[in-house]
């Protein structure tokens, strides 16, 4: 299980998940009404929950994604992303059980139905975010690089998640 402690594997997974979440969040940040419409399609939530979720969730995912890309607060960001993936997997499974044929609302401009394919993809992402959470070893990151270059910081202190 040597790969679990490999800095480069950790970096690749971290950047990949961060990029996916930033890519997913930016259009929703710019158009929260569109996300509200997608959440409404699940037909599970009242108006207040739909509004709150559409306003706040894109920012949570954007901040978490950016944190993963920059390599700051990696464990907290991974935990938030893992929880949001678990919630989405549950929503997709409930929708499938109820026989709803709806778009998951994950990405703007990409038709991605809330079906087993989406659940499998999210499960893979969940494994990735759990990996970055439990095997966090952020030794390669933009923030650490800047600290090293600017402050000649060699002991990594203060930049750890």
């Amino acid at each position, binding site marked *: 299980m040597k790969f679990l402690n490999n800095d480069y594997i950790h970096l690749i997974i971290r950047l990949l998940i961060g990029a996916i979440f930033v890519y997913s969040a930016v259009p929703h940040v710019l158009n929260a009404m569109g996300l*509200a419409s997608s959440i409404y399609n699940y037909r599970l939530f009242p108006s207040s929950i739909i*509004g*709150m979720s559409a306003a706040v969730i894109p*920012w949570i995912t954007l*901040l978490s994604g950016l944190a993963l890309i920059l390599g700051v607060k990696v464990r907290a960001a991974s935990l938030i992303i893992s929880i949001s993936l678990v919630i989405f997997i549950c929503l997709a499974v409930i929708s499938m059980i109820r*026989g709803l*044929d709806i*778009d998951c609302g994950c990405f703007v401009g990409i038709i991605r139905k809330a079906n087993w394919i989406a659940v499998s993809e999210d499960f893979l992402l969940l494994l990735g975010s759990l990996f970055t959470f439990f095997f966090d070893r952020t030794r390669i990151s933009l923030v650490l690089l800047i600290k090293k270059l600017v402050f000649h910081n060699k002991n990594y202190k203060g930049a750890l998640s």
Partner: protein
Amino acid sequence: MLPQTKVDYASVSAGRRPTFSWRPIIKDCLYFIALAILLGGLLNYSLLRNAFSGTLIPRIQQNQVVILKAKAKQLYGVTVIEFASAKQLYDEKNAVFIDARNAQEYEAGHISGAINVPDREFLMGEIDPGKILPNKDSVLITYCDGGECELALDVAKGLSERGYTDVFVLVEGYQGWEAAGYPVDK
């Protein structure tokens, strides 16, 4: 109480994983959430106001109908029927209503008297519309769930391609029909 341990910087410098501690992680998560609530709340003030005053869902439904109408015309080339006109045809018994959702959804609730032609089976050729709808001149109104559901558009397009002349789509769908208090079978 969450256990708290100091971050083991020496382990990190030596290439080992740092000691695990929940408390700072939870604290950071709360910072993320607080910042997101602040930014999301400030930038989406009107959305939140609509959400808490109960006007958000009608607005969403209105937007979805507008988008679906545009899609029906531009992408599918099918004609949309106004909600009031559909109800009038229903009352006069001058139209056949076609439910494009799957059998499970149809059985859970459908417009009273509607025929189930599930989109998937219809497009796969498993359903012969000629057997269910022998008269190609009759007025057909397809519908699905409403919202962003496009199954009714698919079926309407398929029926038009098979020679049915008066095919319309009710974009408000079953949800809109039921919400208006019109007859449904459950």
